[in-house]
């Protein structure tokens, strides 16, 4: 897989909420196959940037280009169809549905026109075949992420760590090219965190993804990311490899305050 072309281009994006500037002229890019990190103190604008990319918010200024297509003003479900999927900081699973149903829902976007509605009601051979395929693909995905045993359990009954994994699996089921992970390691102990890091690397290779990660856990970010953007008060204050970022004075100041000596 060529780690070269620019997959995502964020051009001078600004997002304001009343008087507050959540994202301030963010200008950046992501290459195909990259594992990119986005860090910054709480309230720096990281999740807001995710929301802008995925269409939940429309930026006040700037553009977002995905595979050279302008997706700035497109609605969230269309952006997902273009190939961008995300997880949420607070897990937003479909609680009352089973684990398998959660990953099958993500495949619904394959039914591109309303003809499928009639086929589904009438249970035509085509519709039955599609349903079978969705189930098979869903089960296979669950196997890939290690959740097969829980396929028929309600999503809300899973322990926290597995719920986080299901969040990711559900996003993967939309067959994205770009995956946005919002604090995937939140609430995990060191062992789980290590497993998560392996997991992220593995899915990047298995599913040929590009991944953008928001994280507070520095071990995760420094451990898996090839490049990192650092945000503070909505502005980029640093960009570079993990080694570069760790030594950057602006970053240290933002996280720890001015008085800390290197």
């Amino acid at each position: 897989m060529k780690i070269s072309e620019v997959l995502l281009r964020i051009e001078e994006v600004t997002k304001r909420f009343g008087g507050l500037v959540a994202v301030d002229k963010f200008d950046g890019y992501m290459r195909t196959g990259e594992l990119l990190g986005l860090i910054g103190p709480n309230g720096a604008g990281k999740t807001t940037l995710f929301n802008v990319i995925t269409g939940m918010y429309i930026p006040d200024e700037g553009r977002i280009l995905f595979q050279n297509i302008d997706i700035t003003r497109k609605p969230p479900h269309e952006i997902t169809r273009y190939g961008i999927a995300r997880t949420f900081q607070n897990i937003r699973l479909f609680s009352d549905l089973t684990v398998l149903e959660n990953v099958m829902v993500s495949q619904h976007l394959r039914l591109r026109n309303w003809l499928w509605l009639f086929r589904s009601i009438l249970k035509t051979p085509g519709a039955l075949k599609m349903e079978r395929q969705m189930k098979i693909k869903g089960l296979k995905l669950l196997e890939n992420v290690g959740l097969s045993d829980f396929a028929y359990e309600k999503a809300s009954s899973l322990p926290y760590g597995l719920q986080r994994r299901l969040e990711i699996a559900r996003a993967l089921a939309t067959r994205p090219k770009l995956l946005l992970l919002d604090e995937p390691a939140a609430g995990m102990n060191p062992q789980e965190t290590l497993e998560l890091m392996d997991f992220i690397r593995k899915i990047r290779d298995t599913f040929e993804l590009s991944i953008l990660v928001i994280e507070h856990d520095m071990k995760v970010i420094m451990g898996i990311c090839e490049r990192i953007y650092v945000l503070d008060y909505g502005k980029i204050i640093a960009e570079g490899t993990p080694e570069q970022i760790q030594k950057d004075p602006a970053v240290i100041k933002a996280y720890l305050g001015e008085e800390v000596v290197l």
Partner: protein
Amino acid sequence: MNVQTFLQHFINALSLGGIYALIAIGYTMVYGILRLINFAHGDVFTYGIYFAFYAVVAFFFPWWMAFIFSIFVTALLGAAIERVAYRPLRNAPRISALITAIGVSFFLENFAIVAFGGRAKSFNPQTGIYPTTFLKMLRFGNIRVPLLTFLTLGVVALVLIILLWIVYHTKVGMAMRAISKDITATRLMGVNADRIVSFTFMIGSGLAAVGGILWAMKYPQIYPFTGMIPGLKAFIAAVVGGIGSIQGAMIGGFTLGVAEIMIVAFFPSWAGYKDAFAYAILLVMLLFRPTGILGVEVPEKV
């Protein structure tokens, strides 16, 4: 139409708006603290009227005593409803509480049919409910306005002033405002949230009783469903003004009252649709400014 007719209609409209405002405040306060649409509020309004009626007719209270009695008993009714039907569902999904509120509303309406009879009762001086002087027509030049209208306006103004004083200049009021922002945090501050919620219901229901009595003096035929339509309109008024905001409820109430009377004044052929105006205004509001005139936008955290 000439100036006199306009003024006549307008004063009438203000008094109707005032009554809507009183009821709307009850809705908005409850929604503010519990995020619940108290469907039963319109029926509490109806019961306020019935309590006043029976206080005179069955207990032979003089009118002023009957009215005060009604306000207190209705307040207790409101608190009782909260205690029995809403408090157990405080942590349940909102839809459940909404359905329960609908159930309480229907219960009150049908219980009224059984207890008070479905036939209309007359709430007017002929039955001795209140002095005839209230109906006296006052004249200002060519304008004729019943004394009642001014009384209504006066009572509404007085009540609103007292209410605003309570909400903004007492500890209880501060607790109410705090709960509407964050009930858990308020509890952690040592406030007995349950008691404040009860108090809020009592105030709202008391106001509804005042509004009910004023209404019944204006439209003397009362029956179990009297409160349904004004109740719905008052809720719409609360939404239009900005649900959760007391001043919003006042503005909304007056707006709706004025709209209702003035539109029919200018377009008499639309009289049959006057109940639909409120819904039309509601729809327009919800489409263009769902938080209402004074409402505060609370963006969903993604």
